[in-house]
């Protein structure tokens, strides 16, 4: 039910009214937050593969934005800013928890050894990538962000974004095998 709700196209790109306008009041924030929360949560899920954790991270993201809402509401593109805050919260969370090992603990290696019985999904394959590479893939290919925008959000150079993006795609291709290799053909940027 919620999956259906969240795949609604309007939620993928929240209304510009919520993303741009605003008078800095709490009502504006609530309206904005309702508009962007589903999309932020999906992005967080793609990053951490855990809906509950994703929800907590989105809550932190929105809470941080609430604190400075008066200033933020005067910005040109609040939606882009929310994305930036989310990815910083995600990276901070990983840094604090030091939980990179979650990846190794998922037992994906066994899945790779049994390609017939268990086919790896793209979401599962994403989990194998380092956090920053995963963020690049999600931002570039799920959020439709330009190389420059990704570089700004993650605070790395555009060259790094390109290199890591290509490397991440190659890794995904390797993980997913022939069946989906074509989907991940070299980036034509």
């Amino acid at each position, binding site marked *: *039910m919620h999956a259906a709700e969240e*795949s609604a196209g309007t939620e993928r790109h929240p209304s510009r009214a919520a993303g741009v306008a605003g008078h800095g009041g709490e009502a504006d924030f*609530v309206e904005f937050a309702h508009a962007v929360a589903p999309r932020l*949560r999906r992005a967080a899920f793609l990053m951490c593969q855990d809906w509950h954790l994703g929800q907590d991270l989105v809550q932190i993201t*929105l809470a941080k934005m609430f604190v400075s809402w008066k200033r933020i509401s005067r910005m040109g593109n609040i939606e882009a800013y929310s994305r930036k805050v989310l990815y910083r919260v995600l990276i901070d969370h990983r840094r604090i928890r030091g939980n*990179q090992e979650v990846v190794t*603990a998922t037992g994906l290696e066994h899945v790779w050894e049994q390609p017939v019985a268990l086919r790896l999904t*793209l979401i599962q394959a994403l989990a194998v990538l380092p956090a920053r590479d995963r963020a690049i893939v999600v931002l570039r290919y799920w959020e439709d962000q330009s190389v420059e925008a990704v570089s700004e959000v993650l605070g790395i150079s555009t060259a790094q974004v390109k290199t890591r993006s290509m490397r991440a*795609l190659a890794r995904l291709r390797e993980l997913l095998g022939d069946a989906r290799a074509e989907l991940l053909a070299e980036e034509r940027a």
Partner: protein
Amino acid sequence: MAQDEIRLLLEEELARESPPPLGDLVEASVRQGRRMRRTRNVWTAGGGAVALACLMVGVFVVVNAVPRGTSGTHLGFGGGQQPGAAPAESAAPQVGTDPATAAAPSSAASSASSKAAGSAGKARATPQAMLELLSQLLPQGRRSAPARVSDGTLMVALNLDRGRGFGMVRVGVHSAPPPAPTRCQGGSTCRTLPDKSFVQISDLPDNCIEHQVVFLSRPDGVGIEILLSSCLSWNGTTNPPSQVVLSVDEAIAIADDPRWGTEMPQSLVEGGQRDFPNLSTFS
């Protein structure tokens, strides 16, 4: 193009997911945001008050120093630092400068001096000190594989065998975590201890390293995290399945020890250095 196809594939896979309801996410964000804003305001106001107090103390010192500077030759800081200064004025500085005498005697100075002695007995926490304390707090059993996290944060791991095979316990110490939680987050169970520490217990059955997580947030802003694993550390091929060697209550009792912190008793730091000179790392 590849870009669209990846997005389609992700959309397809996401559509098969059944995410939990968003619930009161936005309202919770607003509440948390208000708390954060309040904390920030308190800190800002507190910082201002401290700055004002420092300024006033500075002014007081200067004003008092001027008339007492007898001939007016060596005033201010130079005069105050002279070893031959009047005993009445030099008594307080002496307590601070000599920890040995600070621990000693009388009157109002004794509380300040005992605080000085307390902080002197602590040192910056190290993974070795954490392992030393963990070793003391764990129940009886064989121990193995002491390790620290490779990113330099305060997290350690130790395997314990209580007679049914080894199991891994990890402990992390965090300072000033996000505003102390007051309610349970998605699917966790929580309790508040008599000392007002807030404990959150999360089950992550699909993550053997963090099979159960006990996070104790102390009122002083220190967070102690205990990971009860159902597997051992990565051995290069796999995370071998293992026992969960502590109950949640035992983990809470361990986390509730007041010696955990970003500063720990000097004896633990020294003991850790002695007992765990070389540690392997995990990521």
